[in-house]
């Protein structure tokens, strides 16, 4: 895995501080943080036409952190990850809540991978997010993206 910073094109540069304050109103709270980034509790979702179907999930609090996410259902047909009662409760979600799902994308040796095992799930109605960590996942942490995603 490389450790260089994300080379972000000019139109996708991280927002300046005043923009951040505006974004804070649209922040998604991650009450438990994200493993590895426990100090980051507030993130924003950034999308751009040039980025679709990817979205940027960026920390606006604590150490800088930005992930690329993609709907896991675009990566794997029939993808289905069951949320535990704990997850549903943490998200403030009911059985009818529409949730947003993101598989985090990583790169290693020129290949791209989506983390289908531990997706980020967001309840847009409550603006609460969380990374789901199923103990017995049937999906891989590193699912290689082929040309067709």
């Amino acid at each position, binding site marked *: *895995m*490389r*450790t*260089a*910073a*994300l*080379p*972000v*094109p000019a139109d*996708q540069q991280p927002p300046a501080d005043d923009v951040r304050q505006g974004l804070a109103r649209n922040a998604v709270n991650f009450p*438990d943080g*994200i*493993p*590895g*980034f426990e100090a980051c509790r507030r993130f924003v979702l950034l999308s751009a036409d*040039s*980025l*679709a*179907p*990817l979205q940027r999930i960026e920390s606006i609090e604590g150490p800088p*952190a*930005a*992930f*690329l996410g*993609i709907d896991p259902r*675009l990566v794997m047909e029939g993808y289905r990850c069951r949320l535990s*009662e*704990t997850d549903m*409760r*943490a998200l403030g979600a009911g059985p009818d809540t529409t949730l947003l799902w993101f598989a*985090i*994308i*990583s*790169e*290693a040796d020129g290949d*791209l991978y989506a*983390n289908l*095992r*531990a997706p980020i799930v967001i309840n847009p109605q409550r603006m609460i997010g969380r*990374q789901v*960590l199923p*103990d017995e996942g049937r999906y891989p*942490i*590193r699912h290689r*993206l082929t*040309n*067709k*995603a």
Partner: protein
Amino acid sequence: MLVFTRRRQEAIRIGDRIEVRVLRVGRDGVRIGITAPPDVPVHREEIYEEIRQANRASVATQIDLTALAERLRQP
């Protein structure tokens, strides 16, 4: 680190909401039951660590975003 000796079916309480109970002791492993409120995440350490590593690698990933997005948009 606090160290306890526990036998089968004996438990340890952490605060008033968490119980860790030894269910079975075998030659190669110990079966442990954890009772915790739903807001306390409980994970096997290696799984948590694996996800943590994956997240750390993902955030520092070097990706040509535009090229990737374009590739993913192809039918």
